[in-house]
C-alpha cells in the first residue's frame, strides 16, 4: 500500500486506536498475527467483552500475536509498540502525560469498556496524530468517538461493511463521519505494515 498516494506519511502518526464488537475477534487476531513485529506505534483496543470475565480474553488474543498485549493498570505509562486492551468492566481513557487511565463510570451505549470513550480521549491526547479503526460490531458504540477523532484531525478507517460479520457499527460510523478509508481486513493489515 502506498501511503504517499493517500497523502499521508509514516511520521504523521503516533498511535492507533481500534474498536470492535461482535464479529471482530477473528479480525483482531488476524491483524495481530500478521502485523509486522517492528510496528512501533502503541495500539489501543476497546473491544466489547463480557463484563464479569476478567481472564482468558487476552490469552486468546495473544496466542498467535506478533505483539505483546496487556490490559493496562491505571496510570500505566504508554510504551511504543505495545498493544493495550481495555480491561473487562472498565473504560479505558488516554490521559495527558503519556498515561492510560481507567474508569468504572456509567456504561455508554450499554458498554463498559465503551469504544466511544477510548476514541474520544485518545484523539484528545493525540489530536491529528492518531488512526482510528472501526471493525465489525452489532451496536452504535464507537460512531461518536470516530466523529470526534475525525473532527480533531485524526485519520479514520472502517472495515469494509461487506466483509463485516455484522455491519451496524461500521455503518453507524460511516453515517455520521467522513471516513478516510474503507478497507478489508487484509488491506487494514497492509496499511498498518506500510507505516513501519
Amino acid at each position, binding site marked *: 500500500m502506498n501511503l504517499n498516494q493517500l497523502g499521508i506519511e509514516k511520521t504523521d502518526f503516533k498511535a492507533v486506536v481500534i474498536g470492535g464488537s461482535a464479529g471482530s475477534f477473528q479480525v483482531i487476531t488476524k491483524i495481530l498475527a500478521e502485523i509486522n513485529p517492528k510496528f512501533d506505534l502503541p495500539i489501543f483496543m476497546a473491544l466489547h467483552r463480557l463484563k*464479569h470475565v*476478567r481472564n482468558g480474553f487476552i490469552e486468546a488474543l495473544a496466542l498467535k500475536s506478533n505483539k505483546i498485549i496487556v*490490559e*493496562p*493498570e*491505571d*496510570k500505566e505509562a504508554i510504551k511504543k509498540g505495545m498493544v493495550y486492551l481495555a*480491561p473487562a*468492566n*472498565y473504560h479505558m*481513557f*488516554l*490521559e*495527558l502525560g503519556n*498515561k492510560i*487511565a*481507567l*474508569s*468504572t*463510570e*456509567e456504561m455508554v451505549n450499554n458498554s463498559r469498556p465503551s469504544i466511544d*470513550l477510548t476514541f474520544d*480521549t485518545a484523539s*484528545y491526547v493525540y489530536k491529528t496524530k492518531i488512526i482510528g479503526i472501526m471493525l465489525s460490531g452489532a451496536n452504535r458504540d464507537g460512531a461518536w468517538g470516530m466523529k470526534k477523532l475525525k*473532527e480533531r484531525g485524526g485519520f479514520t478507517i472502517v472495515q469494509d461493511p461487506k466483509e463485516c460479520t455484522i455491519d451496524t457499527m461500521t455503518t453507524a460510523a460511516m453515517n455520521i463521519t467522513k471516513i478516510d478509508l474503507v478497507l478489508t481486513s487484509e488491506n487494514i493489515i497492509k496499511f498498518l505494515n506500510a507505516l513501519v
Partner: protein
Amino acid sequence: MIEDIEISELRNLCQVILEKYKYDFNNYAMSSFKRRILRILEIYKISSVTALIEKIKYDPIFFKQFLNEITVNVTEMFRDPSLWRDLRDKILPNLFSTHQTIKIWHAGCSSGEEVYSMCILLKEMGVLDKVKIYATDIDEPILAKAKEGKFTSKNMIDVNEKNYIRLGGLHKISNYYTETTGGFVKMDQSLVQNVTYKTHDLVKSGVFNKFDLILCRNVLIYFNQQLQNEVFKMFHESLFNYSYFVIGSKETLIWSDVSSKFIVVNSEEKVFKKVKE
C-alpha cells in the same frame, strides 16, 4: 451542546472551587474529570465552563449537586467475586486468628453496595458482631443513600445477585432485602448495625482512625499519580502493622513511596499487607 473543554478552563474551575469551598480537584485525573464536567454541563444545560464557574461561585446549593455529579457513583455488590472469596476464605480468617475484633474502612463507599457486601460476608462467616466498619465518602447525598440502603431491583438482579452466586454465597441474596415500591429493594438494616457513615475527603481529611483492613477500590483511579501517592501514604498511616489493604483489580501502588512498606498478598485481586511502619 458544548463540544470540548480546554485544560485552562478546567484549571480556572478548580481554582474557584478551591478558594470558595476548599475542595481541591487540581490533581484529579484529567480525562475523567473533563468528562464529568461535560456531563454536568449537559445535565444542567449550562452553556460553558465560564457559566458553570459563575453558578458555582454564587450558588452553594448547586455546588452540593455538583459534588454529587463530579464523583463517580457507579458501584456493584460483590464486584470481582474472586476477591470476596479471598476475603472470606483467607484474609478475614487470618485477621480473626489473631484478633477478637477488627476494624474495617470502606474509603469512597459511594452508595454503599460494597459495605452491604462486606456485612453479608461477615454475617455468613458468623463474625458480623465482631467487626466495626467505617464507611466514608466525600459526597453527603450519596452517603445518605448508602445509609438508606435502597437499591434498584434491576441492579440487584442483573448485577448483584449474579456476583453473589459467582462468589458462592451461603443463601439467596434475596434473604437480605425486602421488595419495596417503585422497583426498589431495601436492604436488611440489621446488617449494618455496626457501620458508621462519615463524610471524608481523601484529598484533605487525612487519618482519623487505625484499621485492620482498608478497602478503597476503583476510587483512586480518578486521581493523578501525585495525588494517589499522597493518599497511599495516608492509608499506610491508617493501617496497623500486619493489616490489609485492598485496591481495585487494575490499580497498583507498586510505584508509590510506600510500596516497600507493603507486601503483595494476592496480585490478581490486589490485596496488600502492611509490613513496615
